[in-house]
């Protein structure tokens, strides 16, 4: 065709693309089945068996609902979840409103403040509240004699813990406002309150419901807070723990797990339904709303944000501060003694190192796995049935509370017949469990990133006889690097802070920092627990800062092809 002719023949491939893709999809399905589906199945089936492994139908459930203690926990869980949700949502809404609809200064700072709790295990706010409102708390009198140990403490800690999740959703919802509607309303002389009711609220209603659903689920499924500050107030998650760890009553633990699954699954489907509708609501021609400066409103909202953001920082700060106190409340001198963990826990600093190890492993294995998995589902055409199955399994963990997944792991991996039982109690199973627990969000992140890149890259590569894995490496991964980093940091931080799933799974020598917090708190060493929580928070925030730095480099000069 021209001066230089291409004579080199395409290299002979033993591994054809289709075979590789099929194999990888098969592997992914197998892994997801092992990590997600089978443990859940084990939990489900366990709830129908008695201690001797005989099928007893719904007998365990009947026993559950005939036991007043357990039913009371269910009601308690619903109660605190409802209360926490009704408090968090207005709080977060106003906060998000201030961040999106005002011209107050330092929005970035305040947004970051509201997100802080994400980097802490849920145990931390509970520990802080003990110092603030406990029987020796410095603001104890504010409770007018009521006890922090119980629903009050649980709800307060949950508000702190859930605030970032609600704020993120509501900031996104309010940020999508269509400026044209406000212009229209203004030109019609609408009062501000009416505008809020007729334009702002309806525009954010799906965000509000979605946030409420997320918060409700978080509260119902959280274990750490109720464990530390629940006192005699039992909730579902602590019941599951007591049944399984305290009394080794696995059948009843399985039933509690199944009960725990119900609200979470319901919430999941409500949320999905709403999300689908919200997409239809958004018009492509919307003009972003740009708030006008307005001194009084901006000042008021700024004051509000200082208050709420300040409180969040204060709750976090109290735990950090308490970790350096020698003997609360009788000796307030500074000490590092609480960080000498060997004094409080047989494993000393080992749990912290284990946590780093598990979080690192989760991120190191999870990130490529999630991304390649999403790539296979999104960009290849091999085994449609297998891909559909993997897709379903990838979305499943979203609806499964950590506690439930953890129980499933106990039943599945600890079963005498299971050769994978050798994994029980190892770092590997902890990392696998964390990965499974947080798979969905990571998967969605990867899929979203992949959907944004040209769908024809694979076709072009095929036409150029370049196998898809080369294109994945040379093109797809570099383009998606920011999303890949997001996934890695997300997995790392969550594996570091989670407690609910792993509490059932650690073994000799593999106790995690978050579990050490639970144990130290159980033994009354609350200052050491706060110290360990401080280590986790510091690490998580450090990793996030590193991430921001890397991101800045990625989008900076190093990759000028990312021009807007």
């Amino acid at each position: 065709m021209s001066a230089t002719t291409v004579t080199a023949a395409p290299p002979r491939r033993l591994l054809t693309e289709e075979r590789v893709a099929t194999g990888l999809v098969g592997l992914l399905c197998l892994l997801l089945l092992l990590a997600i589906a089978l443990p859940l199945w084990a939990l489900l089936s366990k709830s129908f068996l008695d201690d001797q492994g005989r099928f007893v139908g719904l007998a365990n459930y009947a026993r559950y609902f005939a036991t007043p203690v357990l039913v009371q926990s269910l009601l308690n869980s619903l109660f605190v979840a409802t209360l926490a949700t009704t408090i968090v949502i207005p709080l977060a809404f106003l906060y998000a409103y201030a961040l999106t609809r005002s011209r107050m200064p330092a929005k970035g700072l305040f947004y970051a403040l509201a997100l802080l709790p994400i980097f802490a295990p849920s145990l931390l706010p509970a520990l802080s509240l003990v110092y603030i409102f406990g029987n020796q708390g410095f603001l104890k009198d504010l409770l007018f004699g009521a006890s922090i140990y119980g629903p009050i403490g649980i709800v307060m800690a949950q508000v702190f813990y859930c605030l970032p999740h609600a704020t993120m959703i509501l900031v996104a919802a309010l940020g999508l406002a269509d400026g044209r509607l406000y212009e229209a309303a203004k030109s019609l002389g609408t009062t501000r309150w009416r505008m809020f009711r007729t334009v702002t609220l309806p525009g954010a209603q799906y965000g509000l419901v979605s946030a409420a659903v997320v918060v409700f689920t978080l509260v119902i499924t959280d274990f750490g807070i109720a464990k530390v500050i629940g006192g005699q107030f039992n909730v579902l998650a602590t019941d599951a723990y007591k049944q399984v760890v305290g009394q080794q009553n696995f059948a009843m633990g399985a039933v509690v797990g199944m009960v725990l699954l119900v609200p979470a699954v319901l919430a999941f489907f409500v949320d999905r339904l709403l999300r689908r509708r919200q997409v239809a609501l958004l018009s492509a021609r919307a003009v972003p709303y740009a708030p006008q400066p307005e001194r009084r409103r901006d000042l008021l909202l700024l004051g509000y944000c200082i208050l709420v953001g300040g409180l969040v920082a204060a709750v976090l700060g109290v735990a950090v501060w308490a970790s350096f106190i020698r003997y609360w409340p009788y000796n307030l001198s500074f000490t590092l003694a609480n960080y000498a963990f060997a004094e409080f826990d047989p494993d000393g600093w080992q749990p912290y190192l284990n946590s780093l190890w598990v979080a690192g492993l989760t991120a190191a294995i999870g990130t490529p796995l999630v991304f390649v998995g999403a790539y296979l589902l999104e960009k290849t055409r091999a085994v449609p049935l297998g891909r559909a199955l993997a897709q379903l399994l990838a979305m499943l963990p979203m609806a499964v509370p950590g506690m439930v997944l953890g129980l499933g792991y106990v039943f599945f991996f600890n079963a005498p017949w299971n050769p994978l039982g050798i994994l029980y109690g190892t770092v590997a199973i902890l990392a696998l469990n964390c990965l499974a627990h947080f798979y969905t969000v990571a998967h969605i992140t990867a899929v979203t990133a992949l959907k944004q890149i040209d769908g024809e890259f694979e076709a072009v590569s095929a036409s150029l006889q370049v196998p898809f894995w080369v294109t994945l490496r040379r093109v797809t991964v570099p383009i998606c690097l920011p999303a890949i980093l997001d996934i890695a940091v997300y997995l790392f931080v969550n594996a570091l802070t989670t407690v609910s799933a792993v509490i059932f799974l650690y073994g000799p020598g593999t106790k995690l920092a978050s579990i050490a917090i639970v144990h130290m708190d159980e033994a009354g060493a609350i200052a050491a627990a706060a110290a360990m929580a401080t280590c986790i928070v510091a690490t998580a925030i450090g990793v996030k800062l590193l991430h921001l730095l890397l991101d800045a480099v990625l989008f900076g000069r190093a990759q000028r092809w990312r021009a807007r």
Partner: protein
Amino acid sequence: MTTAFRFEPPAGEMPAAAGRTAAPAFLRVRSLTRRFGSFTALDRIDLEVARGEFVCFLGPSGCGKTTLLRTIAGLDRQDEGSIEIGGRDVSTAPPADRDFGIVFQSYALFPNLTVTDNVGYGLVNRRMPRAAIAARVAELLRLVGLPDQGRKFPVQLSGGQQQRVALARALATSPGLLLLDEPLSALDARVRLHLREEIRALQRRLGVTTIMVTHDQEEALAMADRIVVMNHGVIEQIGTPEEIYRRPASAFVADFVGTMTFFEATAAGPGQVRVGTRGLRVDAGATGFPADGTPLRLGLRPEEVRIRGVTTGDDNAFEALVEDLEFLGPFCRARLSARDAPGFELLADFSANLMRDLDIACGAVLRIALPPGSLRVFPRRDDRGGNGAPA
């Protein structure tokens, strides 16, 4: 395809007759069928493309043209039928074994690679010496007119330049078949015009067998050696641009390619049809004319309406009133109505010269003739094709 009266050509014969070319076929598609659920995207497609030919798949969106292209490429798998490329049956081969280059509407350039790396993408994988790759890439960039842009990233190029890079990349491995999937649709009108000439010239020069999918009939007419007009998953007609334009095989083709005025008509003896109360003469053609009373659809391109030197004795001559004029630059499109037959309306194109010479304006009465050889006769079917007379 020279006969306008063969409404329903015997199955397989029409496409085959047109699809067969003198040169040995490079691409041979047989009875290709693709279904998506209950929807049939491709319905027993037969097609042959000769080596070095430039073929356009033309049709409205959803007609199956892109599916056909993707199936040929192996990016989509047919349910039935076979595909041969260069004498090799590739019906079940993966795309990588089909020896084609492809260019997409979206360019699909790798944004993180330089122009040079994009063009050399397929070469690197072949373990060619680095110097040979560099030489080949430089040559290709020269070929598409971007000799100095090798170190830029795609975002730094205009749309037209990006598409040239995509073209160079597709040609880099010297594929036997070049597939272009709406390559010009994303470009500005001027760039599009320019690039289509370049692509055509390049294709002629390299002699690479090329298939281009487009929904733009003008593009197809200007570029293709042959056009494959598709609708509802079947091929309506295959032919040279001129054949397609002058002798559309169906009302659909006639309406889709160019503009045509349609009349509801009935057969009234050999070479005679009736439109409302008016009788018109048409070419009887070689094969039998439909029986009297057969419902027909009559089509006439606006530029075929005769106006100069029309006398009363001419075939199909009558007086028409200029109802409306639409200014289209070099020419005007007039809506005419027959004075003696209310409701008989048609479109006619008049060049600017003619307008001036004959002093044509709204309300003017003209004597026009509809040449029998220009009147196309189609069967009347309501489920397909043009939607009847304008107005």
